């Protein structure tokens, strides 16, 4: 220990060009700012590597096997991926995944922006309303979905209201209707996510100078022109963040579908995420499920990269 300190000092002195004053400054810097070494982060790095990257890598490896979840397995190459592409139900699941992701992001952002504009400055009750609109975001998606399941139930309030106003012919099994079920899921997602988009847009709108808007108003611009040419360009970073985060979250939708329809009726609301779970854990097709997960990860990765690019572009 003692000898270590003796040997390191001259070595650093040889390398240290600044001289005695610079050396003491460097020592002070090491004592305050330089307190710490890269390997201090090693435990955290190792945990992250083990939990995220190694686990993901191992999961990705199983995509090329026929492992059932127990016992031995064999390498099957790209067979799982070929099966996925040849199975129309998996193609439907991919379509539903993209529909829910893009459908929710468009509707959530339009409504979220509209609410944010309405609650930005003038309304006296805006703080209360902001809380009310944001509240669904903090609720558990599973709890929210079970409430909506009751609402959509055949004996639930929607059909009861329709019956009470004489529209019995409009009654239907909302979650059991293959043409409506996916839209029911979309409604629930939009209902819960809109508050999140609203908050992002409110943060963006806070940075728009009032003077600029007033100047535009004095110049005789209409409300739409002010929004189109003044407000929207100013909140473009918020738009980029909200839309890309919305797409990535939309691609991973799982809880709502499992609670509302369990992927039914007859697979009409299956997504890649629900199929990953069912194949890997319910139907003992772990290798096949891993292949689906790999495809879903690749899609999310593409949109995550787009998100990074768009955000960086707007910052610059």
């Amino acid at each position, binding site marked *: 220990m003692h000898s270590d300190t003796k040997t390191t000092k001259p070595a650093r002195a040889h390398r240290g060009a600044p001289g005695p004053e610079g050396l003491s400054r460097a020592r002070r810097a090491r004592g305050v700012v330089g307190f710490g070494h890269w390997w201090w982060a*090693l435990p955290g790095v190792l945990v992250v590597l083990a939990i995220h990257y190694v686990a993901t890598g191992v999961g990705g490896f199983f995509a090329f096997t026929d492992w059932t979840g127990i016992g031995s397995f064999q390498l099957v190459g790209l067979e799982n991926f070929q099966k996925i592409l040849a199975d129309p139900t998996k193609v439907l699941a991919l379509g539903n995944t993209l529909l829910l992701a893009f459908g929710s992001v468009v509707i959530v952002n339009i409504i979220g922006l509209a609410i944010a504009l309405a609650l930005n400055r003038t309304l006296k009750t805006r703080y209360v309303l902001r809380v009310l609109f944001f509240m669904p975001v903090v609720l558990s998606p599973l709890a929210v979905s079970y409430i909506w399941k009751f609402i959509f139930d055949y004996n639930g309030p929607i059909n009861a209201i329709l019956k009470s106003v004489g529209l019995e012919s409009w009654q239907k099994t909302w979650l059991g209707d293959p043409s409506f079920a996916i839209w029911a899921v979309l409604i629930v997602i939009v209902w819960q996510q809109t508050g999140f988009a609203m908050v992002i847009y409110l943060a963006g709108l806070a940075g728009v100078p009032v003077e600029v808007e007033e100047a535009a108003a004095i110049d005789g611009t209409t409300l739409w022109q002010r929004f189109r040419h003044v407000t929207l360009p100013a909140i473009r970073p918020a738009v980029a963040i909200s839309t890309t985060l919305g797409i990535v979250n939309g691609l991973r939708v799982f809880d709502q579908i499992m609670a509302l329809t369990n992927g039914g009726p007859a697979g009409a609301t299956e997504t890649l995420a629900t199929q990953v779970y069912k194949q890997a854990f319910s139907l003992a097709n772990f290798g096949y499920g891993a292949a689906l997960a790999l495809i879903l990860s690749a899609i999310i990765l593409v949109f995550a990269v787009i998100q990074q690019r768009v955000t960086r572009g707007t910052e610059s």
Partner: protein
Amino acid sequence: MTQHRRSHAQRIGLFAAPLAIGALVLSGCSGNSGSSTSDSQSFSLSYAVSTGVESPFETLAKAYMAATPGVTITLNAVPNDSFSQTTSTQFQAGNGSDVIESQPGSGAGQGIITLAKAGFLEPLDDSATALIPSGNENLFQIDGKTYGQALSISFVGNILNQTAATAAGITSFPTDFDGVLADCKTVAASGGKSMFVLAGAAGPNTGALASSIAATRVYAEDPKWNDERTAGTTTFAGTQGWKDSLQAIVDMKDAGCFQGGAEGAGFDAITNGITTGTSLTMFGPSGAAADLARAAAGNTYVVEAFPPATSSDKAFGLASANYSLSLNAASKSKDAAKKFLEWMAQPAQSKQFADAQGSLPVTGLDDLDLTGTNYEPVADIFKNDAYVAFPNTGWPNSSVYDALGTGVQGLLTGQTTVDGVLASMDTAWDQ
């Protein structure tokens, strides 16, 4: 120097602490997983639970501990919907319970054959072999070795709310399919009621519906149909009985047999419908009759077999040991666990388990007098040995039953056809 040394020691400590804490956390996690116990007198038991009511497994385990002082059974109750996944994950990780609830055959994740083929189960003694229901050997054995101990016999068919049926004008359960359709119309005409209640969004229930009908259309004529399908000499799509079974579901839907919104309903619809009397009959295992009787004390529930196509066809049903116990091959308490299994195999315990579950004891079934019990309507089926095991226990993987359950929902919504469902089942079988 002292300060430097302390600083170095602190650095090492800072570096090592997270690792040590991590190791402790991880070991703590694994320690609570119900892994094999090393105490020769003690062992762990893992079983599925779906309600807050005490499980028959828990009842019998407590009785065993009371009867054999010094023995401790660690009870691991796992939610029913994740039991299969939990079991297989624990076995794969090497920390499964010493004794687990298993399911005969290979149609489920905790299937005896599935787990035994993977090398996770220990062969059992002759006392377990003696309990295998006749003709069900392939669901419990591989190469003559027994890997599961049958616990009770369940009948899978219809459970009729006799009280509500009488009130709706149905004094006797139909004996042929025409009678079924006629009764459906009668009950529907009485206003707001249905002859059957179905959880169309729940694959296990739609699967039970199709399987109950297939008992008379497929297995009554050909009890070895599963073996033929395994041998590749027949297919679902090529079997007229399976076509008739699924077509019967479409006919029932058209006749208004099911409650409104059946295609999107969950298990809650069954519970509500059958206990309130808005629906008269459900599809499921016979043990549910006892649960229903406890939940709705004013009603009488009896077990029925779904009628054959015509009254000249023979009555036939599905009955098998749906529940079994298996021994973990990696158990460190095999002797203690085997003594428990031997105790469970005795007629008194078999009866106690069956009573707690509302099923029939696995021993002495032939001598059992079912008169006056809720099994009386199916007594002749047992007496005449006119039953086979629940079909999916002999199917090679759980995807086949999933395809059936999902397909029946598709038939109810019009998304698919009879041929389409059967083709998807064949695909799942051959995967």
